[in-house]
């Protein structure tokens, strides 16, 4: 809109620019770094921990697929397996440690920071403790039982093959390992029900709230949606609205109410 006769130009978007903006925003929390560095110091490791654990699960799945697909290619001592193992161990350990630091820090901040405490609800504490417990269990499992994520690999293989895959490695049962799996599963189901889904909803919040400047033009989908919406029949009760349940938004917007006649 900084250009004269801007409506004569084609509406342009740039995926490259969007990626340039959103990649550091999502991965590094750039906005929080800019506006609230104190919180970033805790929020960044917290989110990094979650991202790395997600990456860890994806790597475990890939490793499981490789194992099932071609044991000859994906064999002990093979470079691909060495690389995968290194990535799994690194993402797992860094993820757990970062997540542990982040969730502990955020819990402390919610309890100690006056501004955050005033608005914190039991749900907020529950959510953060929930995630903290997951990271703590994962940490204890990694330290005491599964430092190289062999049990995690075996678990994913078992999951993919509904328990039919026969591995040479049989992990021992461990309460922390079981709790980690249980908490991770519950967390995956619980997050979409809470405000924590902003990790994913951010796409819509940015595109529909912050950035939506695509103009309505004759015949385009926005105009079609507006035309549909104008047929809704509002029921607002204030006198000046003069909604009777029969008049549409179009009727109301294009007429003057009695109050002003």
């Amino acid at each position, binding site marked *: *809109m*900084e250009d*004269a*006769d*801007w*409506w004569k130009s084609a509406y342009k978007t740039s995926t490259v620019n969007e990626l340039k903006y959103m990649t550091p925003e999502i991965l590094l*929390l750039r*906005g*929080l770094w*800019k*506006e*609230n560095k104190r919180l970033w110091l805790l*929020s960044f490791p917290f989110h990094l921990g979650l991202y790395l654990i997600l990456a860890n699960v994806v790597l475990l799945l890939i490793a499981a697929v490789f194992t099932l697909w071609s044991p000859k290619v994906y064999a002990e001592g093979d470079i691909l397996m060495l690389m995968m193992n290194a990535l799994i161990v690194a993402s797992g350990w860094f993820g757990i440690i970062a997540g542990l630091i982040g969730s502990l820090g955020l819990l402390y901040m919610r309890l100690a920071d*006056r*501004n*955050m405490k*005033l*608005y*914190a*609800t*039991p*749900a*907020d504490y*529950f959510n953060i403790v929930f995630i903290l417990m997951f990271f703590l269990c994962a940490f204890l499992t990694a330290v005491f039982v599964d430092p190289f994520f062999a049990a995690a690999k075996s678990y994913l293989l078992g999951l993919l093959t509904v328990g039919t895959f026969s591995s040479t490695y049989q992990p021992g049962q461990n309460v922390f390992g079981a709790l980690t799996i249980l908490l991770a599963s519950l967390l995956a189901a619980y997050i979409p029900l809470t*405000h*924590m889904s*902003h990790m994913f*909803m*951010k796409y*819509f*919040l*940015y595109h*529909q*709230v*912050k950035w939506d*400047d695509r103009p*309505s*033009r*004759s015949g385009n989908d*926005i*105009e079609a949606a*507006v035309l549909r*919406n*104008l047929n*809704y*029949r*509002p*029921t*607002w*009760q*204030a006198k*000046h*609205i003069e909604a009777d349940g029969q008049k549409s*938004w179009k009727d*109301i*917007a294009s*007429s*003057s109410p009695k109050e*002003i*006649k």
Partner: protein
Amino acid sequence: MKPLLKPADIAAATDCLCRIEPGELAPLPAQYEDFNAKVPAPLKPEKIKNIEASLDDTVAIGIPTPASPEEEDALVLRFLSGLKKLFERENNWTFLQPLLLSMEHCARCQTCSDACPAYVMSGRQEIYRPIFRSEVLRRIYRKYLKASGKIMSKFTGDIDLNWTTIARLAELSYRCTLCRRCASVCPIGIDNGLINHEIRKLFSQEMGIAPKEIHDKGTVQHLRVGSSTGMTPPGAKDSVEFIQEEMEEITGYKVDIPWDVEGADILLLHNAGEMLAWPENVGAFAIIFQAAGISWTMSSEAAGYDAVNYGLWYDDVQFSRVAVKHADIARRLKVKKIVIGECGHAHKALTVIADRLLTGDLNVPRESAMVTLENIVMSGKLKFDPRKNDFPVTLHDPCNVVRAMGIVEPQRRILRKIAPQFREMTPHGVENYCCGGGSGFAIMSGYNFTEWRNLVSSRKKFLQILTAFENEPQDTPKYVCAPCSNCKGTIRDLINYYDAEERSRLYYGGLVELIVNALEGMQKPMIRFGEKPSWD
């Protein structure tokens, strides 16, 4: 030590939820330190005996006190009915999606708080924090409208809903200027300004509660007589005739303002307040357009000579009615485009928001005057002598033009060409601070609201202006360029309230006045510091 207020405290039965104590407001520089102990003065008991005034010591709306507990209960139910409608597509298709997103995903990280000039300048009064009112609405919504809400509220945040809660929430929705600076800094994209806007809508559209300056004297009057100023079509023509005479007197340039020219390239829409309070702005536009040979017109039809649309701030229905009238007038005049004069909220209303309302031939192209003026100034059609503007100039960025629409550079390119001592405020552009008069505050003067605005919501802008000129000699006249009527009115009031013309030699005006002042061929300067204009 003041008690810490939580969102649930809004329901508490106290005479005044929040009182600003002397010395709590953010300090002003030494030259204005005598204002540091000032706080909004409470209204006399007889003035508030029949209205709701228990939020702070300020009243913006003046909601009548219910006569009985039964009436209170009925109003509570009415509120809940309106709240439900905010989340229904047929009643709120306009803003439903961003509202839902903002209601559900706030992490309450408080990043928005430091971005809010009203909250920070108030000495961080809890009730002015951007998420305070959002959290109140969120808790009511979850507790009273969601399944199992009453049980789950112990987990997700409890709140009591009574008439006190509602009356305070209504008042509180008029302590935010809707500048949306909070939204611009939110890492997630939560828009607390939008939530506040929706609260205002609920009260207006369901309960008929809104400040009289923006409803009765605003949109209602606009639709009834043609202008929120009360100016009728013949009145508008008389004003313009006067402006033409004055312009010739002031600048020596004879100007002829065209009315209702069918097929003109441009329909120029002014905030009609300009005709009454700053006629030189209307005259300056006319001089520039005429000198540049632009094909343009103004409309003498009711509503067609007043670009304002107060519905933007509080009521989608009133907004739609005014926007449709504006577009329909342009359609019938068969103009190529509407150019919106120096009025920030009219920019947002008719360009951005009306984009999701106007269809077919009502969707007449709309352009900001900043862009049109830049085109003219840079075209070479007019000759300028920047030495005529050789005084310190700073630019105020109207939130609706800059943050909402991204129109940042055109006005700056003009100033760099015609104002050799132009300097920026810090921060500026899309990170600007609101003048404090946004969302209707500039025109809301009932009860004691003006003092709250001058002391609290405009305080940051006042500090910014003083800082922009801090290296200038005290006796040098300084020009605050505010290309928006409401911003200009707010800055005028600030200068008067703080005696800043006397203490800092601060003056204010629009962009077009500076352009005409630098224009070659004018026999006399348009900007004359310290001289009262003939119409004052």
